[in-house]
């Protein structure tokens, strides 16, 4: 059974100029212990579809789907309260801006212990102990001391480690990482990606990696979903995708990578790919 199952997901936003369809009939599945990368450029709806699955979209969004289930339980039908119990405990999420995702008014220790209190119901001493363990697990040196620090006292990479520690605090079955390394330097990106892959393997988590960076996809994913303008263009395992992409869009995307440049001009997407959806 799949961990997260999405069938024909549609998300519409009400705007001043009428309804805007951000996600248009996307289906995908994530299995236990699998790394799924969702790749797309801005406006492809890759983040929105995951936020919709977690029920984190503002009220202006209209979410419909034929099926939206986590671990066999229907997410759309359940009450907000039940859903909150799953989101944050069994599904965790980390975001692009690590420093902005932490509350600047509280120490990182308080923030991680709060999650442990709400979802795990641990007592004070157990919370502290678990928090230190988690900090060790994500590679924060001197964890007992670091718990008393405020987010602004830490670097972006350290903050992202804290976010990951909070995300895995309740042993989630599924971790959704939304551009987790986009705001970070390359050397830090490497460390964070290595950490995520290590934790994923250790805990046999499902991991959804939302990214626009083909390099990150190549270094992490088992399976890849390519999205464009709210529609799914292709789904394949990672090697097939890079070796033998089926959709024209994926092919164009790969050709536009400067790493693959052959001449002194890069092929651009518009030369290689005609938007089939535009005519609809």
């Amino acid at each position: 059974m799949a961990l997260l199952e999405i069938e024909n997901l549609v998300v519409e936003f009400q705007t001043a100029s009428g309804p805007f369809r951000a996600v248009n009939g996307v289906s995908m599945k994530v299995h236990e212990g699998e790394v799924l990368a969702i790749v797309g450029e801005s406006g492809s709806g890759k983040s929105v579809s995951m936020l919709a699955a977690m029920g984190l979209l503002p009220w202006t969004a209209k979410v419909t789907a034929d099926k939206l289930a986590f671990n066999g339980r229907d997410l759309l039908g359940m009450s907000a309260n039940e859903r909150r119990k799953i989101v944050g405990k069994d599904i965790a999420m980390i975001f692009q801006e690590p420093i902005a995702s932490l509350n600047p008014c509280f120490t990182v220790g308080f923030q991680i212990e709060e999650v442990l209190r709400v979802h795990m119901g641990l007592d004070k001493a157990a919370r502290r102990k678990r928090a230190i363990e988690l900090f060790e697990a994500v590679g924060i040196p001197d964890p007992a001391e670091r718990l008393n620090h405020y987010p602004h006292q830490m670097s972006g990479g350290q903050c992202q480690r804290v976010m990951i520690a909070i995300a895995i605090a309740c042993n989630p079955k599924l971790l959704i990482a939304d551009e987790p390394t986009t705001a970070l330097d390359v050397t830090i990106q490497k460390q964070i990606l290595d950490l995520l892959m290590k934790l994923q393997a250790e805990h046999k988590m499902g991991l959804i990696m939302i990214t626009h960076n083909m390099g990150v996809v190549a270094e992490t994913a088992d399976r890849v979903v390519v999205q464009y303008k709210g529609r799914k263009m292709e789904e394949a395992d990672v090697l097939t995708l890079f070796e033998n992409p089926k959709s024209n869009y994926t092919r164009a995307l790969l050709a536009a990578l400067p790493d693959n440049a052959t001449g002194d001009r890069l092929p651009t997407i518009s030369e290689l790919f005609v938007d089939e959806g535009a005519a609809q």
Partner: protein
Amino acid sequence: MSVILEARNLVRDYHIPGGLLKKAKTVHALKGVSFSVEQGKTLAIVGESGCGKSTLGRILTLIDPATSGELLIEGKKIDIAKGDMTPEMRRKVQIVFQNPYGSLNPRQKIGDILMEPLVINTDTPADERRDRAMTMLKKVGLTELHFNRYPHMFSGGQRQRIAIARALMLNPKLLVLDEPVSALDLSVQAQVLNLLADLQDEFKLTYVFISHDLSVVRYIADDVMVMYFGEAVEYGSRDEVFADPKHSYTKTLFAATPRADVASIKARLAKKRAA
């Protein structure tokens, strides 16, 4: 080939005044950087956040003065702290910023954005200003229709084209490109890089390309300078630096860059299966 830009031992210190409980301290953002760029070439400055590459960019664009060291543009020494900033000097160096959403005035129409440098620096008649702005707009791949629109009606890539057009309005010799494509999508990034290459050929422009993205740098640069904590740890031609990095930091940087080729994916998957 004539040298357009030469920097000799540029230093920039930031003095942070002390308060009641803090001691005053000095941050060394640049610790003596030297390099030169020839006409029509591209020097890429690579480094991670806090390495001083943006500080260097601001000094080269004559926005901030250097604390010490010499900056020569077309062989002429210039020191804005001494106030030898003339409109002619101003026109020689222009900049394109990273964030295309912040670099265009949201209350100005595209036409006015393009014509502003001419209004300030020259006494070109209004008709000619308009014609030149129109020509430049077409040169960067936009149309006359866009002339009277506001920046918020454009996509990131289009805005970056406008920013490039604005920088070129004064026919500069040197363009400082401060991470010009890192906020853009992959497909748009390719278009903007191509545009930059076309413009370089056409106007014999010299680029200083500041970036953290090694794959872009490898594609566009002639020379590469790697910076680390305010120092240039590696400086040489692109092929030299990429083929044989000398400094350990450069090696770390190369090793950390994710690779999107089939061979490395195969290697990774094999390793994973073995584990």
